[in-house]
């Protein structure tokens, strides 16, 4: 890190008009998708199209107004991408609701989205400077641990202890813990990165690989243990993978020490092998990944992963068109973990790639804000939040397309799940906040 540059000489354009235009297009695209589903199924436009469009539009415009008021320099792509993904997610869930008339998830998802946007607006309005969060580094980690431990007290749902049920609503506290952990990592690493970067001695003289000493290794081992505990007690492979990956990335960005990567990978391998060997739930996931059609050959019919692959294959290049696929054959979790299969089948490879690129753009804008910021906490926070999205997309999208073993996790914004959509709105709010700082302080030395 170079010495602080001088005060900014030029100011970047605010680009709020572009943001507004993109939001309008995102809302129109979502309404179009909603109409396309209804038209494909009933050859008539849905009666609630205008209401749905207006609702989504009002939410988006309110968020836009909040950004205009309190974060005028924020990256103009972040909010439209969030609106589009959330709108598309509602369309896909509405589309799957047509196959399960007894179980309507879209209205509840809309309520959660509203709550998410409300929290987004609140965060943008009241969090004036992201550096305030640095003060709450340790409060964050304690709260995060509390949230993670909480579901252990509640009964398991579908083999995983990650939900708590309050007044009919299922909440996944682990989702909120992600943001808090990113805040903690950013705060902890920003304060201790020099100690972490320069402690230890080289293992091989001729290489730059240096292993850290035991003293600074402590917190890392603690995090690793935490993720294993989460995995074993809550059977939530995805979340533990996410936490650990997030920590390794942030540690590397903070210290630049490849030694950390080596330690991280080693610990991850040890953990993965041990858990894959000891824990039958995880073991079967790995077997399913290696042999997705084993249950078919055994005469038991296709399992969820096989059904998911069938759905993607049925989509081909152009997809069947919204409302015309059969991804409901996946059965359980079609609206949540496997929502991407519906997108793949009905929108095809083109639609799927567009969705991946939207996520890629979201992550890229987060990283760009990290690059442009000057304070280490802000940089690490931006990288952490963007990495959460990146890792989450990779873990679940890779899982349902057979790239990596399947682990239960919500596709950000798309999947059914209130905690997830609220958390993702908070992530976007924080990214808006740091990108506003980054671009309002722009001095022409780094990329905006």
């Amino acid at each position, binding site marked *: 890190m170079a010495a602080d540059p001088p005060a900014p000489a030029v100011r970047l354009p605010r680009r709020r008009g572009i943001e507004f235009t993109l939001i309008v297009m995102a809302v129109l695209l979502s309404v179009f998708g909603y109409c396309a589903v209804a038209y494909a199924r009933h050859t008539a436009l849905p009666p609630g199209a205008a209401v749905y469009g207006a609702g989504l539009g009002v939410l988006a415009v309110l968020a836009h107004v909040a950004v205009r008021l309190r974060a005028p320099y924020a990256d103009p792509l972040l909010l439209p991408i969030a609106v589009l993904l959330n709108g598309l997610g509602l369309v896909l869930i509405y589309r799957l609701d047509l196959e399960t008339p007894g179980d309507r998830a879209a209205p509840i998802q809309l309520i959660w989205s509203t709550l998410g946007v409300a929290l987004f607006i609140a965060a943008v309005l009241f969090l004036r400077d992201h550096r305030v969060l640095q003060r709450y580094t340790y409060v964050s980690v304690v709260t995060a641990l509390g949230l993670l431990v909480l579901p252990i007290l509640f009964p398991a749902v579908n083999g995983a202890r990650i939900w708590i049920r309050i007044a009919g609503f299922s909440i996944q506290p682990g989702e909120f813990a992600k943001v808090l952990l990113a805040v903690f990592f950013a705060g902890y690493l920003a304060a201790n990165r020099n100690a972490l970067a320069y402690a230890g001695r080289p293992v091989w003289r001729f290489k730059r690989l240096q292993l850290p000493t035991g003293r600074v290794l402590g917190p890392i081992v603690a995090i690793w243990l935490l993720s294993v505990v989460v995995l074993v007690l809550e059977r939530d492979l995805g979340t533990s993978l996410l936490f650990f990956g997030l920590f390794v990335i942030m540690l590397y960005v903070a210290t630049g020490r490849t030694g950390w990567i080596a330690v991280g990978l080693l610990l991850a391998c040890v953990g993965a092998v041990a858990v894959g060997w000891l824990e039958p739930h995880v073991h079967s996931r790995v077997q399913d990944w290696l042999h997705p059609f084993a249950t078919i050959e055994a005469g038991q019919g296709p399992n969820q992963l096989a059904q998911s692959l069938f759905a993607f294959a*049925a989509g*081909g290049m152009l997809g069947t068109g919204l409302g015309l696929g059969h991804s409901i054959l996946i059965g359980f979790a079609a609206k949540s973990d496997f929502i991407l299969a519906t997108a793949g089948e009905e929108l095809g490879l083109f639609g799927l790639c567009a969705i991946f690129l939207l996520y890629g753009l979201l992550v890229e804008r987060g990283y760009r804000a990290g690059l442009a910021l000057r304070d280490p906490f802000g940089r690490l926070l931006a990288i952490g939040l963007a990495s959460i999205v990146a890792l989450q997309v990779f873990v679940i999208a890779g899982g349902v397309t057979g790239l990596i073993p399947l682990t239960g996790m919500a596709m950000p914004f798309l999947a059914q799940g209130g905690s997830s959509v609220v958390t993702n709105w908070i992530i976007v709010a924080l990214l808006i906040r740091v990108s506003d700082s980054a671009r309002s302080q722009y001095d022409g030395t780094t990329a905006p």
Partner: protein
Amino acid sequence: MTKYIRRAAALCAVLLLALLVNATRVQVFQAGAYDDNPANRRQTIARYGQPRGAILVGGRPVTGSRDSGQQLRYERTYTDGPLYAPVTGFASQVYGTTFLENSEDGILSGSDPLLSPFPLWNDATRAQNPAGKVVTTIDPAAQRAAYRGLGTRRGAVAAIEPSTGRILALVSTPSYDPGELSGTGRAVKHAWERLNGAADKPMLNRAIRQTYPPGSTFKVVTAAAALDAGVVTDLDTPTTSPDPYRLPGTTTRLTNELEGCEDASLRYAFEWSCNTVFAKLGVDVGLSDMTRTAADFGFNDRLRIPFSVAPSNFDTTLDKAQLALSSIGQFNTRATPLQMAMISAAVAGGGSVKTPYLVEKTTTRSDSTVSTTGPRTLHQAMNPATALRMRELMTDVVTEGTGANAAIPGATVGGKTGTAQHGIDNLGTPYAWFISWAQADGTMEPAVAVAVVVEDAAADRGDISGGGDAAPIAKAVMEAVLGF
């Protein structure tokens, strides 16, 4: 830190790239294999996603389609299930398809690429062709007459048009309602188990899939072979035939059920069905000429009408005693009712055996023709001159002999009865056979040739005879075709 952020960003880019490449692998390169995986329900869902095409009899559909509202949406229905089951077969969502439902499945399900004017366009738009129609050659009046004639007895009727080979009736009793097997669910499973377990095998298509010993009706083949080979030159010249006839190389004596067969003329022997005369004639004609004539009539051949017909059998390696028995339709000689109708049709139609067929044409839903079937000659089974003399013999059977029950005023009718022994020591209830043809007076061509077999002809064994049990059914079918 900037450098490390860039590297972390590069890692994210690699992850994104991995997702894109993998998505392409699944959705493009492996898509075909996944689509064709038998556990993938999508092709089945698409298949039943539109109404199945109609099978037409006499210009009217005998099949329909019902919207079940289930995942497999349309189920097959039949207007006269048991009547046309030997023609249509069944189209089950669980147990597959048979007969026309099977052999014309491409047209009926809409998957046949010929149904589409622009096949590549459909591949791009994922549009499905509306299902086509199958127009059969069946004459509904003849079909009904045959079905009513058989009634509650076990048996089969096949009727064809001698000049073309068009199949006019194809009936098998007892029958079943193929509509019971259309859908999914417990009722279908129970129906399947019940029908397969039933002792009288209602799903067996006796007209084409069951072979019977043809008994005396096979004497038409032997007589034609004898006339063609010149073993007999005149119908009324006495043959040299002892009664009883000792089978060559054995001590077994073959007898007749009636008097006057010793040295009988071919006309008398045919009229009164003398076993001794025809057994010796077969031996006199010899194995090679007998097998060639039988093969020319269609024996030992695998026919498709368009679904496959069980091959009728005439052994090609026989000693003389076996040849003698085979020549009167016993020993290993076996024939389907359709095969016997072809023999009758060959006599009526100047010796030419036409390939029988059941599908007149297939069309798209909007009646533009996809394919047509025309008459094709399978073989010339005998000289036209021989055929004329065989017509004479068969006509005599009806006017003077055992087939009097088939006589129709206003038409020339030829026939041949048969009562086939079978079972261990011939103790099974004999099969009553009757094969015939009819030509209305004043017309140029015979209109119909029929074969009838009744398995359990009558309760009292002594009364069983082709003339008594089978001939009235044949008469009813011929009258239906002639429009009398």
